[in-house]
């Protein structure tokens, strides 16, 4: 397991557009695996390559239903609307209300460059939109309605429940 440093708001790299991946190399495979580790370690539900300083079109997502890896993702459908809080691993301690489509379909490739289609609603739709935005240098903070909230006091204390 290798963790990469998560770039934070203000870092130029987060505003840049990413390049397509033309071929899956061992280096990029390692990147994907590191991105997953980094995301899980930070207890996030999604991470895009530029957030760890690599300007390639790769995102990883896990909303609690298993990992999704998307290379060169393209949104082919978005419909409906949802309003809700969103936060970003590159903007620690903050959250804000963002309106997103409620249903999206994204086509792309997995880490073995096999074509995949991901259909998402609610949280997954939100996560897909959020991560795909990163690949074009768009931060959710530019889409927030109203102000960003402080979530610092909201950190969940570890659960002491029986399993």
């Amino acid at each position, binding site marked *: 397991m290798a963790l990469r440093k998560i770039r934070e708001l203000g870092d130029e790299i987060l505003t840049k557009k990413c390049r397509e991946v033309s071929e899956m190399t061992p280096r990029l495979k390692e990147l994907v695996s590191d991105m997953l580790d980094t995301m899980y370690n930070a207890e996030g539900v999604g991470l895009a390559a530029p957030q760890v300083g690599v300007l390639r079109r790769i995102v990883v997502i896990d909303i609690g239903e298993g990992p999704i890896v998307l290379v060169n993702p393209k949104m082919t459908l978005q419909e409906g609307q949802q309003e809700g809080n969103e*936060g970003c691993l590159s903007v620690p301690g903050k959250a804000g209300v963002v309106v997103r489509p409620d249903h999206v379909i994204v086509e792309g490739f997995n880490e073995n460059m096999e074509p995949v289609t991901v259909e998402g609603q609610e949280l997954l739709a939100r996560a897909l939109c959020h991560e795909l935005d990163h690949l074009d240098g768009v931060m959710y903070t530019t889409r927030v309605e109203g102000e960003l909230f402080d979530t610092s006091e909201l950190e969940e204390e570890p659960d002491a429940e*029986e399993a």
Partner: protein
Amino acid sequence: MTGTVNLREVVLGILMEVTEGEAYSHVVLRDTLEKYQYLLKRDRAFISRVTEGTLENLIQIDYIIECFSKVPIHNMKPLIRNLLRMSVYQLKYMDSIPDSAVVNEAVRLAQKRGFYNLKGFVNGVLRAAARGMEDIVYPLPQEDPLEYLSVSYSMPKWILSRWLEQFSFEEVEKVCDSFQDENPVTVRLRTDRVSREEIIDSLEEEGCEVSQHPYLDYAVRISGYNYLQALTAFRQGWIYVQDVSSMLVSEIAAPNWGDYCIDVCAAPGGKSTHLADKLKGSGYVEARDKNEEKVSLMQQNIDRMGIINMVAALKDATAFDQDSFHRADIVLCDVPCSGLGVIGKKQDIRYRMNPAKQEELIRIQRRILSVSQNYVKPGGVLIYSTCTIGADENQMNLKYFLENYPFHLETIDPYLPEQLRCRTSAGGYLQLLPGVHETDGFFLARLKRNDE
């Protein structure tokens, strides 16, 4: 992206704390909502609704679950039990959520919380419940009134059977029914510094709906606000959140200019501040409590509200205070009680209380009465009150008190709104029943010390 708040997981957390732990739901819910203040109003409402709804209907929900589960509810893993409970609540009571969403979210949550092997069980029970919800056979009132009331209104049977001894089936059903109703918050308007109109304007300006309460002109119901503590009228101390039943205590105490009053179990201080307000700065109200934290909170309130004729004092109501002997014109004995009258506001009281705990409370109530009566000067009055329903903690305590101490009951009709006057109020006490009266369940009595 960071993980967003999973609303159902938040609810599950609250239910675990309340049903498996010792925490009170209104406290946990309040703390949780405070913590998630930044959530959308809609999401906050969802958390409240599912939490309160599940607890309000707990016995009924368990009845439903057991119709579809081979495993008895109390043999399930606590987390699974509560997950099923909140899911059945959504299936039965929240039409806006598709059944499939409820089931899928529950299965996902079970998995997330480490119960991968019970996914199938959760899925099976909830799918069966969703399909069979309309065909469940519930107990009938004519066949088994007790079972019927218990399952329909989620009330423990021991409480119901005592009430049925004292009140008619119809009255008991009305009380149970009222516990399920929305509870608009009632506030007392404090018009010593600003006018009633100014307070109401301020409330309405900030989005509240304000309506007059039928019993007292300074009592209004408010709704439609997002966060009460943020209202100008609250921050300025122009309103005090209090049920009308509590306000009636100060009404029947009817203090005269300059009276010395002792409230032996005062926290959080509503009745005391009301008395102090009624004294218009004259006299003196000593608001006692045995809990240091509560006393300092009361003192903060007194200061915030700018009350000059009141002080908070750290004193245990069960310990005799020589200095107060025959000193007070009015003594308020709002004793700790089983709280069965305020189940509508604190849903889990009914599941917490039991006959043994009630016995213990009665012992404390009598102890407090016997100590506090010492402070009433000849011709002075003691107001006994509880927020519970039932003779054990109310009429029986009065009987005990009158048999042992030189007091007599005095009519409270002159101080009551006309709608509340009845045979017992003419005699000196009143049992308020929610659903029958427009208040919480409450008991109050006016006891006058015989002249020497």
